[in-house]
């Protein structure tokens, strides 16, 4: 994982994660060497895949969108068909818990079965976007197979970077600048393969609109060849309109069902652990509203940014999704009308109230464009709700819900 600030940045247009097997099939297409192997959805499939490969040894790898799979038992080297069956069954039969999955773990639906490779040395290679430089950056280190965040923190001198010029693109000399940092230097043939692979990684990164393309570890085999034995690709959501094929790589089983539904309506919803639902327009205000709920002594049940230009239908769906979470004990609607007008919001809320029986208290705080019309629509309806005039009052009403 190269992500030093792994924080939720819930602005629209984040990333779509790919599975390792998907990333590797893309790597193959760009000429980046990966181990022979294929994906399997059952124990029988796994045996069939292994049958076509050289070996044993084979490697069985759980395909989930979370790092730390190795330590959680999601990556196993097996030395016989029996071991292969046992490992496949073990991984498929129960949720895999890693440092990134949370304590409940994640159900594994697919396995990647690969031919074993003899490793001489492990390296780290990734390409990402550097926000400050506004350029893609290639990151290389001899500290392969380790947590690169820790390496960068503890021994930054072991992590090397080359920025990509926006007009020139990746230049061969940049690959040499990185590769010749190695000590001791590998064979000239290996160095050449390494620099070629870097150029191909850049090509894949830009062609596929990646936010991140990471190989950890990138290995040098006993024969001196370089090979990506792991692969992680994140795609820029905003570019999916021109990456039609990649859109089909999205895996709904990786998502919370409510989040999945929200996505269908173009709503930016993240389910959380608390019991105060929140519907807000704008990511910044939504985050700040979560902070206010917490300051009031309660816990937010969700993050929901209905977006700047939300339609009446989106507001309705948003409220429905919030209320479907049975933990929700009260809902705070906090809208500062800009492009989203308060009257549109009010009608959306009423439509939702007609469809579903709202049994929890609603706290509504409206401000901005067409606020008077919005308030009037709500007041003239039969909907029961509490009005908050400002954020401070909204916080107070939330606190009341918690104590009461």
């Amino acid at each position, binding site marked *: 994982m190269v992500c030093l*600030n792994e*924080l939720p940045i819930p602005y629209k247009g984040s990333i779509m994660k790919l599975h390792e097997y998907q990333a590797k099939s893309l790597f193959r297409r760009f000429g980046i060497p990966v181990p022979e192997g294929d994906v399997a959805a059952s124990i029988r499939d796994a045996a069939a895949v292994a049958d076509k490969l050289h070996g044993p040894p084979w490697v069985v790898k759980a395909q989930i969108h979370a790092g730390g799979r190795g330590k959680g038992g999601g990556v196993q080297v097996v030395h016989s068909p029996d071991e292969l069956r046992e490992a496949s069954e073990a991984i498929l039969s129960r949720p895999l818990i890693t440092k990134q999955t949370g304590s409940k773990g994640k159900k594994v639906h697919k396995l990647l079965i690969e031919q074993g490779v003899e490793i001489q040395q492990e390296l780290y290679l990734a390409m*990402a*976007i550097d926000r400050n430089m506004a350029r893609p950056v290639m990151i290389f280190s001899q500290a392969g197979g380790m947590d690169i965040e820790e390496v960068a923190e503890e021994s930054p001198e072991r992590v090397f970077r080359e920025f990509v010029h926006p007009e020139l693109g990746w230049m061969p000399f940049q690959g040499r600048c990185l590769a010749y940092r190695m000590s001791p230097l590998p064979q000239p043939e290996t160095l050449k393969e390494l620099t070629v692979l870097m150029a191909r990684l850049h090509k894949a990164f830009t062609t596929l609109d990646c936010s*991140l393309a990471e190989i950890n570890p990138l290995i040098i085999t006993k024969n001196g060849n370089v090979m990506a034995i792991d692969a992680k690709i994140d795609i820029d959501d905003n570019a999916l309109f021109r990456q039609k094929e990649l859109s089909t790589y999205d895996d709904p089983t990786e998502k919370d069902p409510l989040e999945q539904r929200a996505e269908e309506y173009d709503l930016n919803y993240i389910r959380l652990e608390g019991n105060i639902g929140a519907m807000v327009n704008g*990511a910044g205000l939504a985050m700040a509203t979560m902070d206010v709920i917490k300051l009031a002594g309660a816990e937010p049940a969700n993050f929901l940014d209905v977006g700047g230009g939300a339609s009446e239908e989106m507001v309705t769906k948003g409220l429905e999704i919030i209320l479907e979470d049975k933990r929700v004990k009260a809902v705070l609607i906090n809208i500062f009308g800009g492009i989203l007008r308060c009257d549109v919001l009010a009608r959306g809320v009423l439509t939702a109230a007609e469809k579903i029986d709202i049994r929890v208290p609603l706290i509504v705080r409206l401000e901005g464009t067409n606020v008077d019309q919005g308030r009037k629509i709500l007041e003239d309806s039969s909907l029961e709700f509490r009005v908050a005039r400002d954020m401070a009052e909204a916080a107070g009403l939330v606190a009341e819900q918690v104590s009461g």
Partner: protein
Amino acid sequence: MDENSRVVVQGITGREGTFHALQMLTYGTEVAAGVTPGKGGQNVEGVPVFNTVREAMEEEGVNVSCIFVPPFAAADAIMEGVSEGLDVIVCITEGIPTLDMVKVAGFLEHKKAVLIGPNCPGIISPGKTKVGIMPGPIHKPGNIGVLSRSGTLTYEVVDQLTRAGLGQSTCIGIGGDPIIGTTFIDHLKRFKEDSETKGVILIGEIGGSAEEEAAEYIQREFEKPVIAFIAGRTAPPGRRMGHAGAIVSGGKGKAEDKISALESAGITVARNLGSLGETALETMGQT
């Protein structure tokens, strides 16, 4: 940018472009032209539409642009404005691919154009002009500069300032995307020279390191009072949407890191959004 700026709205014939062109006109902004390729010769709310920015400049002498072009064509629209020599380009569009913005950022180097955004509410000098989508009536002329990475959160803060009796000199939304045209520091430099601005409210959020860099700059050479607010303090770290570029800035991005960087630079950080207006009044009421 001031009340003499002549604005061209790129994407004026779209739903949002039309709506906000009218809002800007109502606010008093000199919306002199619109651009939509293929719709030259039409007019929107009395504003003449041209096929290219070049024609709009030749015919109407525009120098500032406000962009509502859809994401797939927005980078091209920005570069058109930059190439034609506009002074200021405000890009409202949300959802531009990051690699498109890499190209834009590279192209902007050594050019005179100032880009605000993308994915931003724009810029307003209350009582004078607005180029953007913020609701005009919540603003009030005065001496506080407002800088923000957010949209509606900025409206919230401005509304509180106005209710507290604190008017604003200029409010700028710099944009919520990973790659943006101008940063907090670029605008702080202007606020430093601007005699109308007596103090600044800086609204940040988690992710990136823009707030830390602003803190460093403020400590070094910005003498006017600054109050900051950081959104996302309670955002759970379990939800990972990796921003790998952050490796370069050495692990910054958490709210607490930003708050401590700001506080150690002597900046007041408001913890409670509900009382930000009051906090501002206490600190800046005398300015």
